[in-house]
């Protein structure tokens, strides 16, 4: 590859082997990003099926069994297939550029981490076509629904989770090794861009909790096939044990999803405020504090399970504590904007929307953390609304912001600003129409994961479905914008695409050369 990466002009064989055999962090980052977008569209299609069925009361389009498979697969695909790989893709592209490294620390393992994913999701998706249907027990796969009463395809789900976990652990070890070992001279820990900081903490969380998820699915596998009784009270086990093990993984998992999003926003807001990030070190410590707290709050997902009152109180107060470091971050973003020379390009719009909507989602989270009140909210659409505000307006908005922000650096072409802003407004409005009414539905008592509902919920469900279709349309616009930029975007060669941008990634040409920093740069 002396002349650089193979292009289509070199023939199909060379082009395909470039992507399949690559050890280049930019190629692998690109693969992750496209894969996650494909999964995002697939998970989105599942969501469209759900919202179409819920457009009116009664069963119109699908059977309830299939509805359950759709809610389950939507959650699994979005969490493990769309959001997580999207941020790993950003990490692959940006971390070496940001710390002045030539590549990731372990490039071949990096390629392996990616290529496990298509196999894992092929296995997971194939369950939909199996006898008895795909997983139908919700993305949290509580036992005994996922063990005693599960379709046979649950075994395929279990092993898909296993290899997905292996991929995540290897990817995370790679990121940790890269950050600890590959920083350019002068790049001390407390000078690293915040995106790098949030990712190294995320990677630590992943290495800590993916093995616990592996443990949970292994216990399921044993219970289903080998007669053990982890989750069966008849043998001396307990279905609640599953919830404890799952949420010991699951709560850090939601921070795994949101922390890199914090990092992205912490890069973008200073750029378009033309001011350095306010309170850099407090941002780092707040991120670490959130990560630590994520290990000690898991049972707030289980307030209605029948916990002793001491447990309820502990998990309630510990959960509320998370609002403190999160508040530190929100105030820091706002203070960064305060008295800045603000401009509102597409990445900034998505970032500001992130701050507003994520804070909103954080507040509903605070409501849910009140154990006594949660008895009412638990498993209603209020919870669905809450976590879509933090997952979609949080993680997905910041991911979209990242795409617009770094796209010129990736492909040397500028996106069309008007198109970007139109996409933002469609996404923003569609999102709020889709999910804001779900708060009302939940407070009025509509349970989540139901294929049908009482007539009193009809109006807001119809509104929510319309919003969901608009939001789905916005993603097609995003895809169009990205492809249009790559094919016909206005070429840009300047290193610094954005006037206020700081950091090593803006010292290399656009598009970033295939190999960067073969000699370590000096960083002051």
């Amino acid at each position: 590859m002396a002349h650089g990466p193979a292009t289509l002009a070199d023939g199909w064989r060379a082009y395909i082997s470039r992507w399949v055999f690559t050890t280049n962090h930019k190629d692998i980052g690109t693969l992750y990003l496209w894969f996650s977008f494909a999964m995002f569209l697939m998970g989105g299609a599942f969501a469209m099926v759900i919202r179409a069925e819920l457009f009116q009361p009664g069963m119109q389009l699908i059977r309830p069994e299939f509805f359950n498979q759709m809610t389950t697969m939507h959650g699994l695909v979005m969490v493990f297939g769309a959001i997580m790989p999207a941020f790993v893709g950003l990490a692959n592209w940006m971390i070496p550029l940001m710390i002045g490294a030539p590549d990731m620390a372990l490039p071949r393992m990096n390629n392996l981490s990616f290529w496990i994913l298509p196999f894992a999701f092929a296995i997971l998706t194939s369950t939909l076509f199996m006898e008895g249907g795909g997983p139908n027990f919700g993305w949290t796969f509580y036992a005994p629904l996922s063990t005693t009463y599960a379709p046979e395809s649950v075994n395929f789900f279990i092993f898909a989770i296993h290899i997905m976990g292996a991929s995540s652990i290897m990817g995370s070890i790679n990121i940790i090794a890269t950050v600890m070992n590959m920083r350019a001279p002068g790049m001390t820990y407390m000078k690293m861009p915040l995106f790098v900081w949030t990712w190294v903490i995320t990677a630590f969380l992943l290495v800590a909790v993916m093995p616990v998820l592996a443990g949970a699915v292994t216990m399921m596998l044993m219970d289903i096939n080998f007669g053990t009784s982890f989750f069966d009270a008849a043998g001396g086990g307990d279905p609640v044990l599953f919830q404890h093990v799952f949420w010991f993984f699951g709560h850090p998992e939601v921070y795994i999803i949101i922390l890199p999003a914090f990092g992205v926003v912490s890069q973008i807001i200073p750029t378009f405020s033309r001011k350095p990030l306010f309170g850099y070190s407090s941002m780092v410590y707040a991120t670490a504090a959130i990560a630590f707290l994520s290990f000690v709050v898991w049972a707030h997902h289980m307030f209605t399970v029948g916990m002793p009152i001491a447990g309820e109180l502990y998990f309630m107060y510990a959960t509320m504590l998370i609002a403190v470091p999160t508040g530190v971050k929100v105030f820091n973003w706002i203070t960064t904007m305060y008295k800045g020379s603000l401009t509102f390009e597409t990445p900034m719009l998505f970032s500001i929307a992130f701050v507003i909507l994520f804070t909103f989602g954080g507040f509903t989270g605070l409501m849910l953390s009140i154990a006594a009140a949660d008895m009412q909210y638990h498993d209603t659409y209020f919870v669905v609304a809450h976590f879509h505000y933090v997952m979609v307006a949080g993680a997905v908005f910041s991911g979209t912001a990242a795409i617009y922000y770094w796209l010129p650096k990736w492909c040397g072409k500028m996106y069309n600003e008007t198109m970007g802003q139109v996409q933002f407004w469609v996404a923003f409005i569609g999102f709020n129409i889709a999910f804001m009414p779900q708060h009302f539905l939940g407070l009025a008592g509509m349970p989540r994961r139901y294929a049908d509902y009482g007539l009193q919920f009809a109006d807001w469900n119809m509104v929510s479905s319309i919003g969901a279709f608009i939001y789905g349309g916005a993603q097609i616009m995003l895809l169009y914008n990205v492809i249009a930029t790559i094919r016909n975007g206005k070429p840009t060669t300047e290193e610094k695409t954005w006037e206020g941008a700081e950091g090593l990634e803006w010292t290399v040409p656009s598009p970033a050369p295939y190999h960067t920093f073969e000699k370590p740069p000096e960083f002051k």
Partner: protein
Amino acid sequence: MSTESSYYVPEQSKLPIITATGMGLMAYGAASWVVSGGSMIFTAGLAIMAVVMFKWWSLVIDENMRGLANDQLKRSYVLGMLWFIFSEVMFFAAFFGALFYLRVIVNSWLGGDAAIGLFDDTPTDAAVANNALLWPGYETAWPPMVTPDEAANGANATFIGPDEAMSFPGWAKLLGWLPLWNTVILITSSVTVHIAHTGLKNNNRKQFIGWLALSVLLGMIFLVLQVEEYVHAYQHMGLTLESGIYGTTFFLLTGFHGAHVTLGTVMLLIALIRAIKGHFSNEDQFGFEAASWYWHFVDVVWIILFFVVYVFD
């Protein structure tokens, strides 16, 4: 931070995609194996994995022997191994945590005497009702020789408790207690690995290879004894995977530990073969050190396991 003037970035490689294919086949094959009984796909995946892992590590060793691996890359390998061991720690944490929860909390709920608070032993009404209505006759006990199912349903139960547990048999029978000997063997093997390491550091090849070979042997003896213990449990103690939560936790914890001892023994064996070939020196010994860290890790897991699974009942 980087101290190198230039980096080593490997060429394109076919190894990862083959590995991923092998893993995919193993995952799909394992699932279809438990569902419909055929192990063909799984075996194919396993074969691919075995070959590609051999090739991959051979390549890494070869790169190192040719001096391509600079100090920075070696530090990356060290970090990779340490964080991998950390992930293994968390895997065991899940099972130890489950054991703790089942023993301390679930057991007293099933037996109807879960206390009302930390300082008040009065059973909660919910626990009493749970016991009386669902599992009448079940009494909180560890090891539970009778399952709740058995206590409530007698001979119709699905889960029948074991006839005997693996517990500490009393001081009189101490010397005939297999787990004690396994503990002695594993701790000794950690010491022998350390002595081998000292030999390597002092350029004492004979000490290095001799004590390393002894460590591998001890690992193998441990595994043989573990198999012997399982056979005994199944044939003479009525202790199986199906005998309720005691059999479940016993076999899963010791089984996963045994699997890790197997992996550790293979790693030490490979280190031994490489040692005989003269791959290691007192400056360049990561392959051996990684295996020895892993070995100390499985040793520590065993010590915890010995106390919480065998001794304290």
